[in-house]
């Protein structure tokens, strides 16, 4: 339970992870309340994407627990894990679009897998999700025909396809122009207002201030700061303050 008395949407409890001798996460504990925006900050290679992959169950912690809607993700298998994953959307850093099908079919893919809607309705929904990210005219294009930023937006549309309760977003504005970047931020804030829980990995501090109700900073696999943007601005840690002062995009 959190301070509001409701159970958090996401909870990490003492999570540690190492790849061979390299410790990537070291005793991470954090909570993301339902319907809030949580931004994970930090320099490259500090374990932010690895944290997201633990939450969706692509990686399992060496020690500690990851809870999503109160369920220990690492302990789930098969249908139970699929059930938890269906409640989440994931935007990969590389977008990870399926390159053998069109952009529209990428967005339609989760709908085809997890709903019994007719083809026309699935296509309509996929077009609507693409329109949300400004790609309504690109349904039939192949992922290889899109720019990096457009691929990212298509990936976001796919992550939103099933209207998930939780959206895990890895650097949503990396490689986007400032106007599109602001549009994506506004879209995420809009989703948050509708009740979606956001966990966003970003280097873009203005974007984090806009989206995040709470921010946390990872450094060398450890959580060195957590709180509101204002609290991080006043952090005792010079690195945190320096990071918060930066206007780095991406």
């Amino acid at each position, binding site marked *: 339970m959190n301070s509001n008395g409701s159970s958090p949407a996401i909870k990490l409890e003492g999570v540690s992870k190492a790849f061979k001798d390299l410790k990537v996460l070291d005793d991470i504990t954090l909570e993301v309340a339902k319907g809030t925006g949580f931004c994970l900050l930090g320099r490259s290679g500090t374990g932010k994407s690895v944290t997201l*992959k633990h939450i969706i169950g692509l990686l399992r912690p060496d020690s500690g627990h990851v809870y999503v809607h109160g369920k220990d993700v690492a302990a789930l298998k098969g249908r139970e894990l*699929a059930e938890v*994953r269906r409640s*989440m959307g994931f935007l*990969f850093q*590389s977008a990870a679009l*399926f390159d053998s099908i069109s952009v529209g079919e990428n967005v339609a893919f*989760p709908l085809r*897998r*997890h709903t019994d809607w007719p083809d026309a309705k699935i296509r309509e929904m996929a077009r609507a999700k693409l329109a949300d990210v400004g790609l309504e005219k690109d349904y039939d294009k192949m992922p290889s025909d899109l720019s990096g930023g457009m691929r990212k937006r298509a990936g976001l549309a796919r992550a939103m396809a099933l209207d998930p309760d939780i959206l895990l977003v890895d650097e949503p504005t990396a490689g986007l122009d400032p106007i599109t970047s602001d549009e994506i931020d506004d879209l995420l804030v809009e989703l948050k207002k509708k009740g979606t829980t956001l966990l966003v990995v970003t280097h873009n501090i203005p974007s984090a201030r806009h989206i995040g109700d709470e921010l946390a900073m990872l450094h060398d696999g450890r959580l060195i700061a957590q709180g509101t943007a204002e609290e991080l601005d006043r952090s005792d840690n010079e690195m945190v303050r320096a990071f918060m002062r930066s206007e780095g995009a991406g």
Partner: protein
Amino acid sequence: MTERLGLMVLSALAWVGEVALFGVRALYEAFLPPYEFKETLRHIFEIGWRSTPLIALAGFAIGVVLSMHTRASLERFGAEAMIPAALAIALIRETGPLVAGLLISGRVGAGIGAEIGAMKVTEQIDALEASAVDSFKFLAVTRILACILAMPLLTMVMDFCGIFGGYVAEASISGMSPQLYFHRAFSLIEFSDFIPATLKTAVFGLIIGTVSSYLGFTATQGTEGVGRASTRSVVLASICIILMNVVLVKFIFFMFPVRA
């Protein structure tokens, strides 16, 4: 030196063990829901139908060549009348299944290894999992099943085209009628010649699908790793087919001793 050789043998055995477990898991999961019928059918089309021209052409050419060689041998004994039967037996019992297996290993094995390998290194497999889709079942089980089902069908195509190629070659030399040729070709063929030899290619399909899917799933190191997965899929699947063929032929001779 002996120690190094021993380590290499152990490492090869460990690899074979891992691939075998991968294949057994695929066969086991094929019987568990959800069943990926649509995806399996799509792969049967991709693997089977799209390989048909290659198999038909290769079968025809092999039939022509075999016919010429058979004629050159049997002519010495005045046994030209046996050419259709000898060619049909050679094709149906051994040449057709083995050549079809090796050709599909080249065409399909490389494709599967590269496709799954590319998906692995570009996080598309992770994206499938994140979309609550069982990537093993969706990518590996469907392809392995498609290979198992398509191989016997493709082998029949190769057998038929080979016998037809043999007829074309024979007719151009001796002017033999199609009725006489096909009557002689099938006069000595029994089900025990055709069924086991054709069904053994389902095992070849299992090998091609399993080896190439395994190498795709274990691909690392970017595009170089994808290339390696593709090449190794062809090489290792071909070697496994040739070795397994020895075991299967021995097994068939054991099961059908009269016709051996």
